């Protein structure tokens, strides 16, 4: 079964280039749009497996687009591409549910590999993203009250994330820690999963505090 991909990027030259690369590599490009709102509207009908999303769109923020996409088509996986790598934007997007991040300067092979891994359900981390996620866990641990349920990394997860942030490949990490490649992948994925879950819990708690849940 071919992987269905939607490309969201407001830069036409880039959008076409990415769509062509994906097409040549055997992916089915089901939609290529230039605006976040349009992407959210199209997603329900186009049912992409993977959305390749530029984080800087003219109409909506990355977080808004990701929330909209996940609401319109829950099984979708979001791979973010960004040119500038604005750190808070990237972190917010990951917390909102994106499972992969790549700089736009990544080589074509690297990009196609990232799409494949995203479609397989893996988390695609750059060293930069690993640093952001590590920092976020430490921030949450510092800000938390003792009784709070801030998410925490296991020692092994911290170790794996640090190695990713220092540029080691999953294969090198597996060798160094003497575990399987799959185990490394699971650790990385767990770090993301806990952060996203915590984010959803926080949103719900916020909504209840503000009485938003009583609105129908």
């Amino acid at each position: 079964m071919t992987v269905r991909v939607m490309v969201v990027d407001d830069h036409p030259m880039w959008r076409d280039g990415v769509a062509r690369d994906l097409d040549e590599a055997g992916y089915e490009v089901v939609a290529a749009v230039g605006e976040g709102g349009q992407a959210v509207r199209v997603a329900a009908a186009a049912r992409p497996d993977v959305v390749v999303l530029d984080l800087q769109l003219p109409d909506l923020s990355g977080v808004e687009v990701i929330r909209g996409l996940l609401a319109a088509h829950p099984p979708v996986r979001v791979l973010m591409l960004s040119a500038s790598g604005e750190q808070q934007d990237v972190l917010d997007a990951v917390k909102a549910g994106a499972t992969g991040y790549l700089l736009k300067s990544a080589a074509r092979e690297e990009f196609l590999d990232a799409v494949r891994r995203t479609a397989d359900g893996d988390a695609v981390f750059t060293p930069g993203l690993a640093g952001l996620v590590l920092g976020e866990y430490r921030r949450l641990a510092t800000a938390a009250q003792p009784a709070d349920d801030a998410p925490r990394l296991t020692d092994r997860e911290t170790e794996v994330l640090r190695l990713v942030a220092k540029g080691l490949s999953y294969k090198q990490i597996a060798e160094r820690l003497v575990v399987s490649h799959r185990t490394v992948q699971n650790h990385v994925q767990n770090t993301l999963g806990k952060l996203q879950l915590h984010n959803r819990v926080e949103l719900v708690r916020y909504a209840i505090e503000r009485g938003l849940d009583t609105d129908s």
Partner: protein
Amino acid sequence: MDHDGCGGRYSDPVLDPKGARNSESPEEPLWRALAVFRLAALGYASLLVALNFRHYEHPAIGWFVTGVMATWSVVTITGYARPRLRAWPLLGADLAVTAACVVVSPWVLGPSGLSRGFATLPAAWIAGPVLAWAISGGRRRGAAAAVLLTICDQGLRGRITPNSLDGNVLMLLAGIAVGHVTRLAVRAQEALQRATELEAANRERERLARGIHDSVLQVLALVQRRGTEIGGDAAELGRLAGEQEAALRSLIGTASGHPASGDPSSGDRHRPVDLRPLLAAHATATVSLATPAHPVPLPAHAASEMAAAVGAALANVRQHCGPDARAWVLVESEDGVIGGGTVTVSVRDDGPGIPAGRLDEAAAAGRLGVAQSIRGRVRDLGGTVTITSAPGQGTEVELTIPYRSLS
């Protein structure tokens, strides 16, 4: 990037310079206070007339003058309420009418009245134009009005009595003080407005810069990618584009708008600065930088020493592994149990690594030149340096320094 789509943010009510201009000028409350003062002073003057008119030489004229004062109070209150009318015609007429009321006073009161120590008919009401002049033109104008009225008042009494002069001195002081305060308030308001406009302009510039940076980065990334695929001369172009892309990205990725960021070379060496922008200067196409999304504050001198140590470590990588060697820099900050914590910066390369034992050997032989300068800097900050090497996975230098909570 569609720049037209984001113009709306300029109408932010807090920052809109037009909004600041429309808001009340600092003179307004003073003009309103003057209106209240005039009515109160009029009431006091009327009371004096009502209590004393039997002793006047011309009581009817006394009541007439009181009527003129009442009418004039209404005229000036409505007149000064309009900013357009706060000019010489009204200011001059104000002073003239008030002076006329003062001038006729001795005649109305008669010699017996004045000598019995009655005040002039308008009493405190004569301060009205003094305050109006002061509010409209500052302390000199206020003082001038006070002096003119004092001349009218004292000149017509024939002789100067300390009692009556007291009132005039107070009037002079009031004119100067109110004029001074008005100027100060106006200047403060202007400064605030300039600052507000500047901030709005800066925000706008920052917003435009983000959009432009993003577009430029897109194009550079595209050139790099396609260039590398085409090969030959295009690959060289692609490589150059990639270097510029990394330089620009590291510049804007961390540098914008964080309160703890700043130039470490200026000011107090204990002032906290964000370590991240300092390290961002080292990020290139071959050097990747991973940091938290929030600022990593260190005292200014510690931050710049740390950045210099990282620079030395990266120079070491280039020296031993060649200019094309890749390197990764990871910044972590960890809070301790009580107030303090540690900041750790790791620098890893993907070179051949150092065989076991070689490190100690080299250190013993004093051949760790650059590494020693790293150790020196970090030791001065009370920190530690760990160098580890795994075969086939490069060399890693870990710099850890303690810090006391800066909050």
